[in-house]
């Protein structure tokens, strides 16, 4: 099936407005805003079965339908461009190569949700994305595509680019909203959900960049076209990221439902010549490690859930044999320890303790009691915090304990009769 999201990715810089219009950008938004009703747009996206590409895979049309139909005051669309999940680098491609695709999707989504303002939260490090986006927004305002009279419809659609400042947790949607408001990026307790009380206390929907980039095509080509790709539960194409020990690392568009093996072998040229695979991460750091025996898993949110993991962002990382599994795990446990926001004790302490224990195993100083301790940490923090960060750090840890237990077992320090027994973790 033909690609549609990635057609401009080979460019060296962003496609500017004149060329973008020649490629059909903005034509669908113009037709939608001039001839459709907001409810019809929501129904199209719902019927297409578009699911959120930020990692949670929540149905986008259903999310949109939570927004007030007769808003008393402003509603907001917020685009999550805080791409920070290790192994994920797809949204950057859209913003840096085809920013008008994102902006056209934003105009349609704002119309569908009766929002007049959209904030695009770009991660602080993505300066190139921010510049490309700001240039594209200025072009659109100049041309009357965005602004107080967007596309000559009398409707107001304003897009404001916002810049984060370096915090993984701001990818969590309520932390992102706090950060947008000029606060510490700490997640909010839910309910109330953003559709009721979101950015600046107003009804808000937060969507991922790639999710919104699908919207113009759905409205242009229709539901049957979109559903002809991908799986029944998750239609459409996805931007797979492939990195690590492969021949051709990069972003590859393909239908949802390919096997991880096909993505690695057919799209990314296979495991790097002369190397062997020790493990792979199916969809970003928090989805954990799978052994090569699981390469035929289907890249579909529901299929991977059955495997005890997640599709996440679709960012596959191939770990070669010369990298020890415990070393790879430590990279991630250190990351999660660094990135916990510290608000909730089970997460703050759990991320730090599990990193220390993984460090002990890494040095060959693990103990048999540590297995129970690690499981306690994961069980004791899951669903006991404001957001799902403990589930994120339990992804690599839990999967390593299931699929690579032998690596831990051979890193247990032989018992010495004179050494004191115990489970102290500081050290």
């Amino acid at each position: 099936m033909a690609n549609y999201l990635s057609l401009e990715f080979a460019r060296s810089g962003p496609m500017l407005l004149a060329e973008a219009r020649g490629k059909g950008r903005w034509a669908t938004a113009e037709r939608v805003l001039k001839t459709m009703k907001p409810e019809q747009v929501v129904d199209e996206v719902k019927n297409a079965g578009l699911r959120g590409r930020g990692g949670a895979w929540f149905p986008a049309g259903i999310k949109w339908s939570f927004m007030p139909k007769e808003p008393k005051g402003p509603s907001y669309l917020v685009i999550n461009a805080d791409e920070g999940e290790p192994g994920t680098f797809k949204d950057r491609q859209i913003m840096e190569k085809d920013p008008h695709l994102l902006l056209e999707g934003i105009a349609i989504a704002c119309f569908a949700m009766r929002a007049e303002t959209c904030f695009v939260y770009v991660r602080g490090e993505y300066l190139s994305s921010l510049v490309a986006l700001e240039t594209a927004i200025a072009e659109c305002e100049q041309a009357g595509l965005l602004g107080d009279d967007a596309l000559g419809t009398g409707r107001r659609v304003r897009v404001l680019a916002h810049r984060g400042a370096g915090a993984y947790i701001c990818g969590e949607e309520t932390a992102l909203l706090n950060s947008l408001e000029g606060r510490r990026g700490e997640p909010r307790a839910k309910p109330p959900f953003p559709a009721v009380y979101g950015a600046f206390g107003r009804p808000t929907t937060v969507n991922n960049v790639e999710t919104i980039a699908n919207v113009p095509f759905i409205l242009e080509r229709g539901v049957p076209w979109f559903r002809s790709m991908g799986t029944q539960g998750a239609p459409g194409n996805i931007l797979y990221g492939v990195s690590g020990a492969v021949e051709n690392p990069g972003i590859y568009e393909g239908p949802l439902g390919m096997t991880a093996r096909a993505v690695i072998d057919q799209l990314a040229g296979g495991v790097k010549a002369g190397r062997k695979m020790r493990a792979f991460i199916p969809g970003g750091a928090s989805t954990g490690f799978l052994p090569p025996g699981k390469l035929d898993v289907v890249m579909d949110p529901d299929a991977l859930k059955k495997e005890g993991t997640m599709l996440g962002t679709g960012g596959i990382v191939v770990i070669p044999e010369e990298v020890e599994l415990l070393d790879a795990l430590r990279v991630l446990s250190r990351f999660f320890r660094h990135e916990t926001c510290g608000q909730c004790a089970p997460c703050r302490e759990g991320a730090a303790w599990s990193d220390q224990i993984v460090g002990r195993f890494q040095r060959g100083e693990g103990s048999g009691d540590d297995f129970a301790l690690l499981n306690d940490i994961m069980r004791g923090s899951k669903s006991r915090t404001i957001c799902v960060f403990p589930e994120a750090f339990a992804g690599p840890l839990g999967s390593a304990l299931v699929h690579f237990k032998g690596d831990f077992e051979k890193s247990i320090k032989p018992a010495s009769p004179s050494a004191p027994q115990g489970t102290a973790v500081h050290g």
Partner: protein
Amino acid sequence: MSGASARPGQPGEDATPPEPLLRELEALAARYPTKRGGLLLMLHRLQEWRGWIAPADMRRCGTLTGISAAEVFSVVSFYTMFRTRPGARFPIGVCRNIACFVQGSERVTRALSEKLGCEPGGMTADGKFSLQEVECLGSCGSGPCLEIDSRYFENVDTDKAGRIVDRLARSDGDATEAIEEAAKAARQ
């Protein structure tokens, strides 16, 4: 790292932002539904100008957004990109996360550490370079990746890292321009 001086040509700790920047800060406060919404962008602009965020900047942001300087500091301290001390002229951050790690980022960090004569987390004696290991930069398909002042250098091996440092070491003009030039040269 304390005690280091600001970059050459950059304003000192007590300098007042110039008029155009002050007007820009006010415009940022007016850009969002609440004044406080502009805080992150204000802090970025002040850091670009001064090279770091001084106590006076936090007081100013507090006045502009209607919150206390202490609350501004609580925001500043949350985000890794904000510096509350003068930084090096060329702050080098090497990604240490999984995709770059698998592709040899540790070797790049070691080579830079030896070449610069400073440990990760430290700064060279002349204040020209600092070296830090950072988390995922979103360049997983072109790692190892390093960043210098939000400019990315991709597919970096030990040789390329050395060439980047050599080029920057020769520069004594505008730091941002030097980084841009080094980035251009590194891409070729």
